[in-house]
């Protein structure tokens, strides 16, 4: 290619206090290239985005745009050079209309004082035509679907004369069909000369859409190259640094006659999930794989009493159970570790002990008064079980590392009479060492306490290595099951890609 790269980073480093967020990173993006940035949480992806968009100033190295060294890249300069970032939360204005969400950026950039609604509407229409999508211009954004909002965010970036659009985990809230539509839009943009930097940790999407791939781990670039050089296994290995052949979980012997811990018979949830039947025996770890939007989280939440319009029968230890509220779910012995640890799982400013007993308060305070001695003793015992390293139960959870925080979230359910443990993304954002410990803790729990575990994860090696069997889910149904020797990472890949082909593109 004769033209210089759109953006080139040379030896970029960034530290926060003692933490090295980026360590001597070099990479480049060609004009109109679809590039994927892969890495686990905390690998330095978001820091890199913020360096390119001018939010952070690097401590070392240089940034070149169009072959020229840019001295001080601040957000305004970055936007002026055509860099647009679409954050995961999209940063739209829910109560304002589509038109206004589209033109506000541009008018701001043009430093206008007045608002020309006619011109704004024309611009909005044109950009949506350019993207070949139709949206109700006068609808307020809050009434749109997740996909519609995503389109508004993309259109807004295009209107701002973007030459590079950075998309942070853009497919999180989309269904398979919507992802396909978004990919079409992305390819259109490419044809119009706009480069796209995808930030993702989802293998399949990277392989499908990107031309080149850069993988980050612990603040360093660990792999880079054309997508043809990669397959899922190679990407995973680069991302996790883990040897994939280790640590296959030895499934405990389960005698066939046992009553299942959890049994679902024809369970449906609204329109999202239909006709789910499954049995999980004591000591079993069952994986649930599938795309975002396939209904995995909806199913998990419904079992935990957070679903609406649940039909069919659920049995816990053979006893019928109606999940009407979280309280009832907990009483029935269901435990749920949510996807988003920080916003859904933890009371950050409270102590470890308060977090630990939060789901079992009735047990610790049968008559209003909290049995503080028992609470402290059992929190300490939980510390040992979960191998939490912290000065003591009084320390606020906010001071712990991600891995230790996740152990508190899981450990909290040791304080209840949990018999069924649902783990939604059990090791998301947890460093590799902690990850393996958490896995072995989970196995210990199934072995010693006869827990039944449902493990929801996008991390296929995690599922393959830790589950007795894995169920595949797509479009709200169970579509397959892999078990015993058939449960390999390759087989999982095949099962999932079969689903993808089955979906209309």
């Amino acid at each position: 290619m004769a033209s210089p790269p759109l953006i080139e980073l040379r030896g970029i480093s960034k530290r926060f206090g003692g933490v090295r967020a980026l360590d001597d990173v070099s990479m480049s993006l060609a004009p109109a290239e679809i590039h994927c940035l892969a890495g686990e949480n905390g690998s330095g992806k978001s820091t890199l985005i913020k360096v390119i968009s001018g939010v952070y100033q690097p401590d070392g190295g240089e940034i070149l745009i169009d072959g020229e060294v840019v001295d001080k890249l601040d957000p305004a300069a970055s936007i002026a050079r055509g860099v647009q970032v679409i954050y995961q939360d999209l940063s739209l204005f829910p109560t304002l209309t589509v038109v206004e969400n589209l033109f506000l950026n541009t008018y701001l950039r043009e430093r206008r004082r007045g608002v020309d609604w006619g011109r704004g509407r024309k611009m909005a229409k044109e950009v949506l035509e350019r993207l070949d999508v139709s949206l109700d211009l006068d609808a307020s954004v809050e009434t749109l679907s997740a996909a519609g909002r995503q389109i508004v965010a993309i259109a807004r970036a295009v209107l701002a004369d973007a030459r590079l659009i950075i998309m942070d985990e853009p497919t999180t809230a989309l269904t398979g069909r919507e992802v396909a539509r978004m990919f079409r839009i992305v390819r259109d943009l490419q044809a119009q000369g706009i480069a796209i930097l995808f930030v993702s940790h989802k293998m399949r999407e990277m392989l499908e859409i990107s031309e080149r791939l850069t993988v980050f781990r612990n603040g360093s670039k660990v792999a880079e190259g054309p997508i043809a050089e990669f397959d899922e296994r190679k990407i995973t290995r680069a991302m996790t640094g883990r040897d994939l052949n280790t640590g296959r979980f030895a499934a405990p012997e389960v005698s066939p006659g046992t009553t299942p811990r959890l049994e679902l018979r024809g369970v449906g949830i609204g329109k999202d999930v239909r006709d789910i039947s499954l049995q999980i025996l004591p000591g079993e770890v069952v994986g649930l794989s599938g795309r975002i939007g396939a209904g995995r989280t909806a199913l998990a939440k419904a079992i935990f009493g957070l679903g609406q319009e649940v039909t069919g029968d659920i049995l816990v230890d053979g006893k019928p159970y109606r999940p009407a509220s979280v309280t009832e779910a907990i009483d029935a012995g269901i435990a749920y570790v949510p996807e988003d640890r920080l916003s859904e799982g933890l009371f950050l400013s409270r102590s470890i002990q308060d977090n630990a007993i939060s789901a079992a308060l009735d047990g610790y305070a049968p008559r209003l008064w909290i049995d503080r001695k028992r609470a402290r003793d059992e929190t300490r015992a939980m510390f040992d079980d979960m191998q939490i390293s912290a000065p003591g139960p009084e320390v606020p959870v906010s001071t712990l590392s991600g891995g230790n925080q996740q152990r508190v979230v899981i450990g909290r359910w040791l304080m209840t009479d949990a018999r069924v443990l649902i783990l939604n993304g059990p090791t998301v954002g947890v460093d590799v060492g902690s990850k393996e410990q958490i896995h072995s803790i989970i196995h210990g729990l199934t072995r010693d306490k006869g827990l039944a575990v449902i493990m929801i994860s996008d991390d296929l090696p995690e599922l393959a290595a830790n589950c007795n069997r894995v169920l595949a889910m797509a479009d709200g149904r169970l579509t397959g099951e892999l078990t015993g020797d058939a449960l390999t990472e390759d087989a999982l890949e095949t099962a999932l890609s079969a689903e993808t082909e089955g979906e209309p593109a």
Partner: protein
Amino acid sequence: MRLFHNADVLIALILVVAMVFIGLVNPAFWQMANLFSLLKANVVIGLMALGVLLVMISGGIDVSFPAFAVAGMYIVVRGMVEFEYDGVVIPFLFATVIGALLGLVNAGIIHKFNMIPLIVTLGTASVVRGLVLGGIGTSNVNINQMPDALIAFGRTDVLTLERANGTTFGLTAMILVYIAAALVIHLLLTRTMIGRSVYAYGADAEAAKRVGFNTGRTMIFVYCTAGALAGFAGLLHSSMIWLANPRDFVGLELDVIAAVVLGGASIFGGRGSVLGTVMGVFILVMIQNSLILMGIDTTWQRVVVGGMLIVAVAITALRDRRALV
């Protein structure tokens, strides 16, 4: 925009139904004299409501404006008495500026310390009332001390009609001031970027910052305008009743907030219109003033206003319901 119009249509409908109902209970409602006095009662509350509308669109709440109104009014009137100044333009300018400066204090504290507007404005209200009463005086300036020009200004009528018995009654010219202010705020809100920044800030303050709005300037615009309107309305009030009472406007914040919520402004920010607010003010004032016409004891007035606020908020809360999960 369609949604706003829908909300406005609904409010207009409620307004018409209420008017018809009150008229049926007591036809005296439709007498011109009554309608004129209703419109007159709209002016001061309405001007303040325009300011509160801005604050509520930005997602905040303001309980300090009655104190600012008192400050604008009392400081200026006492100053005019002291310096024996008689005029209209400069006093109103002063009252407006005093309100705006006090609003600037609100904006500064709220923005700088990222603090809950309610608590900040509770504090500034107390500070300002304390300063006015403790520092300037506690006695009323009544009709025989009030500057003549102010009284003359306040009693200007734009239209005078004659009753059957030969006495005349008029429509206050202040209604024009109110309409002009409403028009200006409407244009600011719909046609300028600073106006749209208020909506954007109320819809999602973080996103507004990311998109590149200068949110500090937005806060200054919102609270200074609210303060300026309050200061202006305060002085206008005293020129219309020929009295400057430093203890005036106590508890007025509730009426005004109720009117703005009745007018369809969202309690979560990001939504609201001048037309809706003007109608909301009219509904509130009309119902308050019509209680006697409908034969209801005035002691029930606060119960009715409080009840109206609760109902209006409940309806908008149902509309804007934000699920936790």
